[in-house]
Structure formats: structure tokens, C-alpha cells
């Protein structure tokens, strides 16, 4: 097992398989902490973690916050303006102010791709990307990988099918990058307008044929379909999307019998995934949420806990 050498977690493009294994291994040991009666270890006592969220997000922020608290770190949440241009204060300025309060690590969520890079370049704090634009959401991908590995023991040769709005999905991008490194075969499927140009160059198979995509899949991941896509002319209607791509019980039958059903949440039941599937026996959606805390504890611990 390699040693952790990174200051930031930006995305999984520049993370090695060894790094990912180390995070998963660390998360495994932290998962147990959350099941104790006293859900706390002193690993990050005296450290301060700030949540800088410039985009609405409940579950990711809460998950990071619980992770930090269970490691005994102090936390604070900062609601930043969605765009620096609106507020007059730049993202970097906000970050420098946080740094001046001797914060050790910033968890950042931002609508613009590359925004966490500004913080990493301009401050000396550790930065964790909690989702930037359409680019990356590394902890989501790590918790997805963790969940699959827990069930199957390995991702080697596992067929993962991601269905939905691939074009706008940072979850898809990070999962593609991470899962391929872990040996999975990744298939992305969605309407042709929502499959981004050149996606195959990331090493995936891209298809608009939902039957082909689901056939033999070991993991079926549905992505959130946003209603705005209709206004932006990517889709004629949500109804047509549902007819063609919604993960229904019938469609799920095309996948392997023990295939896992996943979703990064929040789900639009009846749009990208049928309620029976989201709540069905193959669904691990809530386990993803539970595992998210362990993954985020591992990330915070590796970035902060081993410095001192």
C-alpha cells in the first residue's frame, strides 16, 4: 500500500489506482466508527474544516460535515455567492478570508469547472473538490467505487452502466476516471444530445441503446435528469426521456440478476428511475449515502491527519 502524498483532492483523473486503494482501505476502517455508540475518534482534533458551498447541496455538505465531526475536527459552513461577479467578492478573496482564520482545509462546491483550482493555486490550505461544474465530483465516485467493491470484492471486469445526462454530469466523469483505473468496463448511455463529444476517449463505451447498455450490466447507475434540459433543446420532453431511458423493473431485468442499482441522489422518482427500482432489493442507494461518510472521513484524514 502506497503512502498518501497529496495536499488536495481535485479529481480522479490525476489520482493513481494506489491512491484510490489507499482511500478505500482507510474508509473501511472508518466505516466502523459510524456504527459505534460514540461515533467519534480524535484523529483531527484541533483541525478546522470549512465548507465553502457556492451551489445548493444538502447531502454532500451534510456528509462532509458529519465526516469532519466524527473525526473531531471543528467545522464551519460558508454560503458563497454562486458567481463572484454577482457578489463583488471573488472566490479567491473569500478563500483568503477563510485562510486568515487559520482554517486547515476547505471543502468546495462550485458551479464553475476548475474553481477549486483557483483556491489550490491561491491559498496554502488543503482543498477538497466537492463538485465543480460539469468537471469532477471525486468523493462521490470514491463512495460509488467503495460500495461496488464492498459488494463484489473488486471492480476488475465489472460492467458498470451509467444512464442519463452524461454531458452535464461531474459524477459520471469522476466515476469514469476512477472506475476504469479500478479495472471496470464502463458504458455510458443516454440521449444522443446528452452524450458529450469525445467521451469515448475517456475509455468508455458510449451508446444510445438502453437495451445494449443494460445487457449483462453488474451495476446500473441512473443520473439525475433535470427539467431544464427540455428548455435547452437537449430533449423534446421529459416524458419521452422517461419512455426511452427510465430504469424500470422491466429494463432492469436485462442486467445481471444480482446487478446493483445506484444513484448519486437526489432521485427524481419516475423520471430517471422508477420508485420500485430505487426502493427495490437491488438498490444500494442508501448504502451509498452511508458509505459517503466513511469515504469523506478517509479523505479528510489522509489530507490532514497525517501531517502532524
Amino acid at each position, binding site marked *: 500500500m502506497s503512502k498518501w502524498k497529496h495536499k488536495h483532492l481535485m479529481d480522479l483523473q490525476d489520482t493513481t489506482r494506489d491512491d484510490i486503494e489507499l482511500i478505500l482501505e482507510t474508509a473501511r476502517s472508518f466505516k466502523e466508527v459510524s456504527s459505534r455508540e460514540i461515533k467519534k475518534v480524535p484523529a483531527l482534533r484541533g483541525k478546522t474544516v470549512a465548507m465553502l458551498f457556492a451551489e445548493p447541496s444538502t447531502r454532500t455538505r451534510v456528509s462532509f460535515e458529519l465526516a469532519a465531526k466524527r473525526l473531531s475536527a471543528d467545522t464551519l459552513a460558508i454560503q458563497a455567492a454562486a458567481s463572484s*461577479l454577482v457578489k463583488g467578492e471573488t472566490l479567491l478573496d473569500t478563500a483568503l478570508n477563510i485562510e486568515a482564520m487559520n482554517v486547515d482545509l476547505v471543502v468546495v462546491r462550485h458551479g464553475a*469547472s476548475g*474553481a477549486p483550482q*483557483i483556491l489550490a493555486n491561491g491559498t496554502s490550505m488543503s482543498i477538497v473538490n466537492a463538485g465543480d*461544474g460539469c468537471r*469532477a465530483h471525486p468523493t462521490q465516485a470514491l463512495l460509488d467505487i467503495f460500495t461496488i467493491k464492498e459488494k463484489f470484492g473488486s471492480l476488475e471486469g465489472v460492467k458498470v452502466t451509467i444512464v442519463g445526462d452524461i454531458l452535464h454530469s461531474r459524477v459520471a466523469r469522476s466515476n469514469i476516471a476512477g472506475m476504469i483505473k479500478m479495472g471496470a468496463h464502463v458504458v455510458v448511455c443516454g440521449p444522443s444530445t446528452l452524450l458529450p*463529444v469525445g*467521451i469515448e*476517449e475517456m475509455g468508455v463505451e458510449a451508446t444510445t441503446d438502453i437495451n445494449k447498455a443494460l445487457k449483462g450490466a453488474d451495476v446500473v447507475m441512473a443520473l439525475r435528469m433535470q427539467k431544464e434540459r427540455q428548455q435547452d433543446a437537449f430533449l423534446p420532453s421529459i416524458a419521452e426521456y422517461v419512455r426511452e431511458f427510465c430504469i424500470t423493473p422491466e429494463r432492469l431485468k436485462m442486467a445481471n440478476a444480482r446487478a446493483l442499482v445506484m444513484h448519486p441522489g437526489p432521485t427524481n422518482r419516475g423520471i430517471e428511475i422508477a420508485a420500485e427500482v430505487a426502493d427495490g432489493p437491488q438498490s444500494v442507494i442508501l448504502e451509498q449515502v452511508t458509505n459517503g461518510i466513511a469515504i469523506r472521513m478517509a479523505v479528510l484524514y489522509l489530507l490532514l491527519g497525517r501531517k502532524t
Partner: protein
Amino acid sequence: MALLIKNARIVNAAGEDKETKDILIDGGKIVQIAPQIDREGATVVDAKGKKVLPGFIDLHVHLREPGREDKETIESGSRSAVKGGFTSIFCMPNTTPAIDTAQTVQYILDQARKVGLVNVYPVGAITKNRAGVEITEMMDLKRAGCLGVSDDGRGLMNSGLMRRALEYAKMAGLLVMQHCEDDNLSAKGMMNEGALSTLLGLKGDPFIAETVIIARDIEIARYLGTRVHFMHISSARSVDLIRRARAEGVKVTCEATPHHFTLTEEVVKSFDTSTKVNPPLRTRADVDAIKAGLKDGTIDCIATDHAPHTHEDKEVEYDGAPPGLIGLETAFALALKELVAGGVLTLPQLVDKMSASPARVMGLENKGDIAVGKDADLAIVDLGCEWKVTKEDTVSKSKNSPFMGWALKGRVTTTVCGGKLVYTDARAS
């Protein structure tokens, strides 16, 4: 007062002189070129060991005045120009107010005259306030001093209006300079659309946003028999379309920028907002095609699209940053590196792209060539001078350049405009 350039190794588009000569300048004109000239009382500039080129002519500059004097002024832009060896610059009308009336043209000409460093040619707007709805009073713009019109920053989307603009501009004797972009296709893209934009999660601007306008305008210009000039072309397919149109005799001309023949989209990976430009930086194949187009004559001119932006405007997320980069002070050295050292053009051919050809495109008969009777606009260059691009060395008010920190070779040491010494490199004196 007379100016005498001694030991001048003259390089024109037609070729480089084998021997050095002296150039005598008086009344803003070149009056004599001979092996040995002496003139009592003349200011003498010794060009020994250097090359003397016709001053560069840039068809595409943003001076930001009036309206955004925090980014650049006519004065600071003029100083940036002469440092880069430019003696004539065409300033784009996307100012506030837009250059869409004779009064604004007059204002710019007055300011430029007061500064007195470089010939400034205001480019008028094609449509009022660049809104793409009604054409401007082009006859009046022409009388005020415009030679071309453009809605730069925006393409003229309405095909019917483009037809009328070409017809009317022809009557007015103005060249229509098109910013080739279909906004519905570029769709607020941040960088070239492709595997890299997908990887970086940045909205893509596909090259077809450029080529559909070029293809359309070629058809309209061909139908009407008018000229049209395509600005800052960036894609291989654009070069192909223009090459074919020219072979068929359609009267199209075009320009390409140093950043589009030097950089690829790869530099966007840094999320450095000085790499954000419109049209976006594209692929290696596009860069190679731009070079091939310069070599075979499909691309007439090198223009900088010098687009100053303040630190504050650029120091934001990639999505929020305005597009554009400064280029006047690095254009010549980048062209030497990529085109001359790169084996694409000879030095005289580069002079054609930067001086003679832009003069031809805009009808500046007395510029772009060093000969008796021509305007005394000169750039004296030291091809061997090695220098580094730094903020301190940059005289433009803005410093948004992706070339910051680059080591370049070849520097302008002296610029003469209208027979006047307008720039002397501090390091040379």
C-alpha cells in the same frame, strides 16, 4: 526634421536587400534610399546589425476607449503597439458607446492624434450599437475616416442583414470584417468542443460555429460580387473553405492571430483565464492548418486581436472570465518563432503578412513597403535579441497574456511612424 537611418538592412515583402543602405526620411515620407547618405542636421539612427522592416499593420486591436479606460486607452494601446513594431492599428468598435457614429470616429481620431504615436484607424460598427438590427450610417462613417466595418465580438447572425450590409458597405467603400460566430452553435462555449472540453467539464464551442458563418458569407459575397474579410479564423475547416472560395475567385480575405498559430487547447487544462479567448484555441491539426494557410497564401494577414482585460476581470472562474488576450507586444517574436524559425515563412513573407498584405487588404497604398515616396513607417528589429515576457516589461495597461514567462527571440528596438521616432527600446539605448 529629417531622420536618417544608417546601415539599414531593408526587408520588404519582395525580399531582403543584400547590402545595407541609408534611408532618408523627411516630411513623414521616405525621400531617398542609397548606399551612403549624409544630411546635415538630421537625427541619425544606426541600424547596424539589425533589420529594417515596414512598420507592422494590425487589422484587429481593442483599444477599449471610450468606455473601459481601466483596461486600455488609446494612449496605452498606442504605446503597446509601437513597442511591438506596429505603426498602424485598426481598433474594433465594441467600445462604450460603440463606434457606430461619425462623432465617435472623430473622437478616437482626435485622441490618437493627441497621443501621436501610431496611425489609428477606427473600424465602424456594421449595425447600430452592434445590435445586429439596423445598419449604421456607413457613408458618414467612411467620410469620418473609417476604412472597414465590423460588429466584432459578435457575428452578424441575420443572413438578410449581412446581404444588405455587404451591398451598402460596397457603395460606401468600406470593407466588411466579419467576426465569424454563430451564437446558437457556440452557445456560450468556454473552449474548443472536443474530448478535452468533455474531460475538463467546460462548455464546448465547436468549430462549426465559425465555419457555418464563413460558408454562408462566402455564398453571399459570391452572389453579390462583393468583398468580405474574415477575422481571427481558428479552424482547419475554415482554412479549407476560404482556400476553395479564393480558388473560385470569390473576393474573400482573412486574418489569423499569433495565439491561434502558437497555442492549442491543451493550455486550457491549467484553467488559466488568459487562455480563454474567442474563437477558442483549438487542436494541433487546426494550428497546423493555420500555418499551412499562411504559407500557401490562403490567410492574408497576421492580426493580434489584442484584447486587454483587467486583472480583476480575469481573476475569476473560467466560466466568468471575459474572453481575450493581449498580443501587440509579443506578435512579432511569436511569428518569428512559430513561422520563420518553424520553417513556414521566410522573413520577407512574414513582412508580407504583417505589413504589406494588411495594407493591401485595407487599401493603404502608401504603407507596408519601404520605398521612396512611401510613408515613413518602420520597425527596426534585432532578430537575435533574447527576452522574456514579463508583466513589468509589458506596457499595455492589461497583462492578460498566456505567454507570460515565455522566453522569446527577436525584439523591436526602434519604431518610426510618420517619420517620427516613436519608440526606442530602453534596453538598446
